[in-house]
């Protein structure tokens, strides 16, 4: 800690004491449990692998309870100004646990059928969650970077989990190389900001930046930080990795990458751009406008040309990132809250959409082509209806929750007198509606190639039904989540 303290002038008054340790209780529990899962798994064979699964799920449930019980009522900065415990962080963490829990549950039978039901998936998954938790609670450039790298390394390894698959190795390689470049960019930007402000701690930086808004090196640093953030979020033009990784990785990993890490990336964006460089919002607002419009345009238009469902979802993610950026760029509290709501609801919908792919896949059959959805209404009207909910929700059609997320973001944009930006956004979402409609065409209007029903384990059926009903119920009463967000923002 002396090493860090040397770089942290502000932390002098902020001694690290044992009394502060309970603040990091969720992180500590996660670290211990991930290590325990790692060790326990050594003593289990393929028949008893269920132990690893149950222990991982138990860990996540325990963390949900711990975080709810110790929910932060005010912001507390601890450990020499490297760590912050606040309501926004806690709320995001809870959703990260829930998302990961869902991911593990969806993936179980998929992994089993592909001889991938190994402990590594869960250990890497849990360490990834730890990385996300650190990102969410970071109050210092170094902590942010630490969390980000922990998460990224786990994800690189998870993509490559299917050793024999050429396409998986290729996408892991791509992901690693591009991810490393982006991390480098981020670090470079951080170093410039450090050079100007002399601090790595966000609140000190924030105070320093407010007095040095015109500093050219600071702006350069900001550019690199925005690039790094845009890469991690998957915003155009830093989106190239996303479709390849989604398509190349096993669906059980794609669902992991496509859900909880978005919440962490959102937190990182808020920490860096708002908590740290908030005074430069005039500068990053323009950058984010360009990123947002480009993401909505490329994401929605290119998605139309896709034949692979996972690739299509990747482009749809890119377009949703554009919407998330819209809320952030308003630089208002309402905008941040709207973006957070959008990110959480997007995670819910993405979980459902990937869950559908895993529901339909079987031994030796991936079911990730759009054509595999053909005639789903004949095979299983209920799950066709669930998919309908997810897709209409993503398209932003009421009464599903995706509509309220879009409404909130648009409202925050209109509130800062950028009606033109709101109009651009809605026009692109109409373009985006087209490829969702194509899915309905396949599911409802076409006759199936095969007439057999859906064979899937009962847990995934149940979870998917709950997931769909939640998206519908939140669409009727979005305040359930929005109320929580308003309380913590």
């Amino acid at each position, binding site marked *: 800690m002396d090493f860090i303290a040397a770089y942290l002038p502000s932390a002098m008054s902020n001694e690290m004491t044992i009394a502060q340790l309970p603040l990091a209780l969720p992180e500590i529990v996660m670290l211990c449990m991930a290590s325990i899962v790692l060790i326990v798994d050594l003593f289990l064979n393929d028949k008893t692998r269920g132990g690893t699964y149950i222990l991982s799920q138990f860990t996540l449930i325990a963390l949900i309870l711990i975080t709810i019980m110790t929910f932060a009522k005010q912001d507390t900065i601890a450990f020499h100004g490297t760590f912050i415990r606040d309501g926004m962080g806690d709320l995001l963490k809870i959703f990260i646990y829930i998302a990961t829990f869902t991911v593990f549950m969806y993936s179980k039978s998929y992994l089993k059928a592909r001889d991938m039901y190994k402990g590594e998936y869960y250990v890497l998954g849990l360490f990834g969650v730890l990385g996300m938790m650190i990102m969410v609670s970071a109050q210092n450039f170094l902590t942010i970077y630490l969390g980000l790298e922990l998460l990224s390394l786990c994800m690189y390894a998870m993509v490559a989990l299917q050793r024999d698959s050429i396409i998986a190795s290729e996408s892991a390689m791509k992901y690693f190389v591009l991810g490393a470049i982006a991390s480098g960019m981020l670090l470079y930007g951080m170093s410039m900001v450090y050079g100007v402000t002399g601090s790595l701690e966000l609140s000190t930086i924030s105070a320093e930046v407010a007095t040095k808004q015109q500093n050219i090196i600071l702006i350069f640093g900001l550019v690199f930080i925005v690039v790094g953030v845009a890469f991690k979020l998957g915003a155009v033009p830093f989106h190239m990795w996303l479709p390849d990784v989604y398509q190349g990785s096993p669906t059980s990993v794609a669902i992991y990458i496509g859900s909880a890490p978005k919440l962490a990336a959102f937190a990182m964006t808020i920490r860096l751009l708002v908590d740290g460089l908030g005074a430069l919002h005039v500068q990053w607002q323009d950058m984010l406008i360009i990123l947002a419009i480009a993401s909505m345009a490329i994401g929605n238009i290119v998605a139309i040309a896709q034949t692979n469902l996972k690739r299509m979802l990747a482009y749809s993610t890119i377009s949703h990132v554009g919407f998330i950026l819209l809320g952030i760029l308003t630089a208002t509290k*309402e905008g941040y*809250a*709207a973006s957070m709501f959008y990110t959480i609801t997007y995670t819910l919908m993405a979980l459902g959409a990937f869950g559908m792919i895993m529901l339909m896949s079987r031994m030796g059959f991936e079911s990730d082509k759009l054509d595999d959805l053909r005639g789903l*209404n004949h095979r299983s*009207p209920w799950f066709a209806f669930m998919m*309908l909910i997810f897709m*209409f929700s993503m398209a932003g*059609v*009421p*009464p599903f929750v995706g*509509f*309220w997320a879009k*409404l*909130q973001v*648009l*409202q*925050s944009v*209109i*509130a800062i007198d950028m*009606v033109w930006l*709101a*109009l651009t956004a*809605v*026009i692109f*979402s*109409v373009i985006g*509606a*087209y490829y969702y*409609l*194509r899915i*309905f*065409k396949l599911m*409802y*209007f076409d006759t199936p190639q095969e007439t057999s029903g859906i064979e899937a384990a009962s847990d995934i059926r149940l979870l998917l039904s709950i997931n769909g009903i939640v998206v519908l119920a939140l669409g009727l*009463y*979005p*305040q359930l989540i*929005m*109320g929580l967000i*308003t309380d913590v923002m």
Partner: protein
Amino acid sequence: MFESWPLLSLVIWTPIVGGMLVLATGGDKNATEARVLALVIAIITFALSIPLYTEFNTSSGSMQFIEHHEWMTLGNLRFYYHLGVDGIAMPLILLTTFINVIIVIAGWEVIKFKAAQYMAAFLIMSGLMVGVFSALDGALFYVFWEAMLIPMFLVIGIWGGPRRVYATIKFFLYTFLGSVFMLVAFIYMATKTGSFEILELHALPLTKTEQIYIFIAFLLAFSVKIPMWPVHTWLPDAHVEAPTGGSVVLAAIMLKLGAYGFLRFSLPIAPDAAQELAWLMITLSLIAIVYIGFVALVQQDMKKLIAYSSISHMGFVTLGLFIVWHIYSPETQDVTMIRTGINGAVVQMISHGFISAAMFLVVGVMYERIHSRMISDCGGIANTMPRFAGFAVLFAMANAGLPGTSGFVGEFLVILAAFKANPWFAFLAASTLIIGAAYTLWMVKRVFFGKVANEKIQNLTDINSREFLFLSVLAVMVLFFGLYPAPLLEVMDESVANLVRHILQSKIPQ
């Protein structure tokens, strides 16, 4: 006895929940159960909507049957579950629940493929459409407005004709594109008032520029729905491909939603912009009436012909609404003719609901027998189906606006008002009486009269009792409102007067 009942909620949610129940009857094994259940729910819904008429206070122009509950607060916007109807919305709700019963009966034996889903889609859709007519909160209105597209999209796509995919995606994207601009306009106003309450938006002062932008945003949403020339091209496609029930709902109710939107939003929220842009609206209406009338004349496909005739008839509605400022003179302050015009427009909406529904059902009955909608495939049907031909001729006369049928009342009132505004408007609008008679009667002549055209026609059997039932009920309605429109005019009169008072006041902040 109904004072304490949340009637509007019941009329909205009974068919929606009922539709879910119908879905739960499962696959095609239980098709009969699904049909019976759907019919029961449709009849219950219609019965529940009748007290809206009987208990309606015709001497008041304000909202009635109000239900006002807090829904939620998102960010700094408040949302309400606020329902209520005035004399303009109430008849449209009755029309919706009535047509819904007809559709269930008309689809009875015809829909064999996934009957439960078909019935459920229409039940849910009718609940959502009643929601649109009764919502007094803009966000609630928008939710119903968009949600309604989903069942319609599926109905055209699943049970439609060969080009159904093209038609239904076109239908969805056209309407969706129009609606999102309305959403932006709503959010813009809600940012000012803090809520989407329609009555608050009516009172919101807006500058001329703001009003013009808002008016255009609403125009994009509603003109697509009505549809007005030149954004009408989705309608013939959708009508041709849709199953009979889908065409009926589209023509009888969905088109009215656009016109209702003008009455509820465009005119009261942006009256100064409406005045400014009235020339545009009148021009578009007259183009629809005259030009689309000629387009209808050359159609080979009966459904297409009726679709174009619908566009032409809806032109009367928009004409009746936007001639207000041509009639009004500040000196005399006489609003009688203005009210006549708007009354005419609303009567035309209701009447067209019955007539277009009947016309599409007539084509549907024929299509089930000869599996063609081409005029050239028919001829001399009156020889083999005399009872059916009787109905068809009656509805065709109503479509042409023959006095004594409901089609005449609305058109006559609008033409009367248009004459006061500008005799040329009246002249052009009245030309439809000739064009309309030409295309409808010419079609009737070619399809029903003359020699029996072919083998198929020779072997036709006349309508059965089920078909007789729904056609005769519609015939009664068409004749009743044609001969005695007073009950309809009575309920809307005060509300229209209220609306006219409101829109003649400038909303520009002084």
